């Protein structure tokens, strides 16, 4: 299945238009929309402008609650910490939640190499792994798959009868996931937001996989990216509302779970908490003046408006979990330079992403700034020729794929740092 396949391309377009319609409807019904966005931007910028200060206060608050806190400078270090903690807990099996940071550091791969089975509990992530394909969208990992394709995968892997009923398919997967959940002992969980003033961790979802994990797992490894902090509850409210409106087209997530410390005896909840705070180049990104890119809360709104993403899907973004317009500004900063630079060209200047982004990220300005910085490092005219070729290819998926394979052939190129 490739994007040259018209059905897959149709599904990307379908996902985009359904998501955009529900998002627009929800925002239109929000009376304080502009003020809300302004508060959310303020909340993000407040943290990004003083990351070290917020980090120090959060660490202090969290340690005071008896939680072990460690820092990881990069993905390798984060994975080493996670794997060693899993080993300490003698966990051959563990569950994980849906979170872009866990995909960014490739924790599944790290666990597998170390003979630990780390299973994603979100239905979409689970099926993405089973079918070995990912839409690249932060909210709908398998939004590009048809029920026929999912049914075929389940039939092959589990020998279940063919069905094209989405409810029936969801129930089949649910039975497996639920069985694993009820046996859950250890969970690896990406944190949506950490509230600095309270040392409070917040998890958002609509199906309840986060609170279920937090109730049933006896040991939880929390993984937080340094930028996903928020100073106080005021900022948290704005960000949660903005996330729910832009990601799911609803005023609030169905489930907002708060967690501050390990459960006391006799109370459900994790007996141990272990927090890993991951930088993975974010401090560098801020120091270089690209901090605005980190305002992103991974709602996926920009993806669903982007004509390039809908043409090329998640495959064109150098195996990074950050795809679509935000991929074109974050990947150049996160990936190795030779691969990251190409990412800025995954744009045909439609400009729709900017109006969709609730955090008002200046995609165009950030890409221009990156190109300007890189211009000094490349031969004159090289980028311009590349832009022209790129613009042609992103509208020709049959040619794009082999081309992309060719430019990413270098074994080290697809590895995020």
């Amino acid at each position, binding site marked *: 299945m490739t994007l040259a396949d018209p059905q897959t391309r149709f599904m990307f377009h379908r*996902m985009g238009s359904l998501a955009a319609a529900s998002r627009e409807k929800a925002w239109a019904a929000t009376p304080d929309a502009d003020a809300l966005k302004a508060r959310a931007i303020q909340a993000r910028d407040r943290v990004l402008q003083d990351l070290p200060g917020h980090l120090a206060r959060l660490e202090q608050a969290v340690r005071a609650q008896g939680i072990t806190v460690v820092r990881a400078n990069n993905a390798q270090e984060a994975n080493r910490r996670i794997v060693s903690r899993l080993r300490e807990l003698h966990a051959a099996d563990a569950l994980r939640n849906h979170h872009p940071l866990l995909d960014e550091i490739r924790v599944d791969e790290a666990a597998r190499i170390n003979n630990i089975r780390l299973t994603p509990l979100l*239905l979409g992530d689970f099926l993405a792994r089973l079918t070995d394909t990912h839409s690249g969208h932060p909210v709908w990992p398998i939004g590009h798959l048809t029920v026929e394709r999912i049914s075929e995968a389940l039939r092959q892997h589990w020998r279940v009868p063919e069905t094209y009923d989405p409810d029936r*398919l969801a129930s089949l997967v649910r039975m497996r996931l639920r069985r694993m959940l009820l046996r859950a002992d250890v969970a690896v969980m990406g944190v949506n937001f950490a509230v600095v003033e309270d040392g409070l961790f917040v998890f958002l979802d609509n199906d309840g996989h986060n609170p279920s994990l937090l109730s049933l797992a006896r040991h939880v490894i929390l993984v937080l990216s340094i930028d996903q902090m928020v100073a106080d509850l005021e900022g948290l*409210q704005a960000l949660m509302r903005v996330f729910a409106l832009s990601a799911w087209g609803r*005023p*609030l997530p169905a*489930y907002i779970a*708060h967690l501050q410390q390990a459960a006391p005896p006799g109370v459900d909840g994790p007996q141990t908490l272990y927090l890993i705070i991951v930088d993975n180049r974010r401090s560098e990104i801020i120091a270089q003046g690209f901090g605005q890119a980190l305002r992103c809360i991974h709602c996926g709104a920009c993806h669903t408006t982007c004509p390039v993403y809908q043409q090329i899907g998640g495959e064109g973004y150098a195996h990074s979990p950050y795809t679509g317009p935000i991929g074109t500004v974050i990947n150049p900063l996160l990936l190795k330079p030779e691969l990251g630079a190409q990412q800025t060209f995954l744009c045909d200047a439609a400009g729709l992403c900017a109006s969709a982004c609730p955090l008002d990220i200046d995609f165009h300005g950030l890409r221009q700034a990156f190109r300007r910085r890189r211009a000094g490092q490349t031969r004159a005219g090289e980028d311009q020729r590349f832009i022209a070729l790129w613009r042609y290819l992103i509208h020709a998926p049959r040619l794009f794929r082999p081309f992309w394979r060719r430019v990413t052939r270098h074994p080290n190129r697809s590895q995020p740092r």
Partner: protein
Amino acid sequence: MNASLLQTLLASFETVGVSWELAENPIAARLALLSYLSELGRKDIVAWDPEALPLSDLKSAMADVGMRLHAIQRGHLEPEGMVGLTGADAALADSGTLVFVQGAGRSWLPGLLPLHHVVLLPVRRIFPDLRSWYGAWHTTRPQDVSRALLVTGLSVNDDIELHAHHGLFGPGRMHVLVFEA
């Protein structure tokens, strides 16, 4: 009790797919609960500790009609076909959100594992919105905020073709019994 707050809450419940029933006092609420559960034909109910539920004498009232309240215990977790029964610590009128604070005898699980969740909500626990609830509790009950689960509507997953499938890791049906206490 602010009647318009209550009306806003009930309207929000409908928006988020939660059914509700109003009772004038705890006695009427107990009767309404028993009749709702009898109509469902369920005898086994997984619930908070009876002491933690906001209606008194429920255990004996239920035993009188042949119903049994069970605590959720690790290793005996097959309550999917049962009904979950809990109180709610607060409700947010503008969004139809229910707040559940985890504590001894007050697990989140009866509201997550069964496919059907019944909630007991005293009217005095209604707040206008998220901001007012955070504002009030952050100063007076910070420990409770730190163990709170906020639930707005049913468990829904739309990963497959963006089709809304209800009841994945939480209930596909919720009923709130609101009563004057």
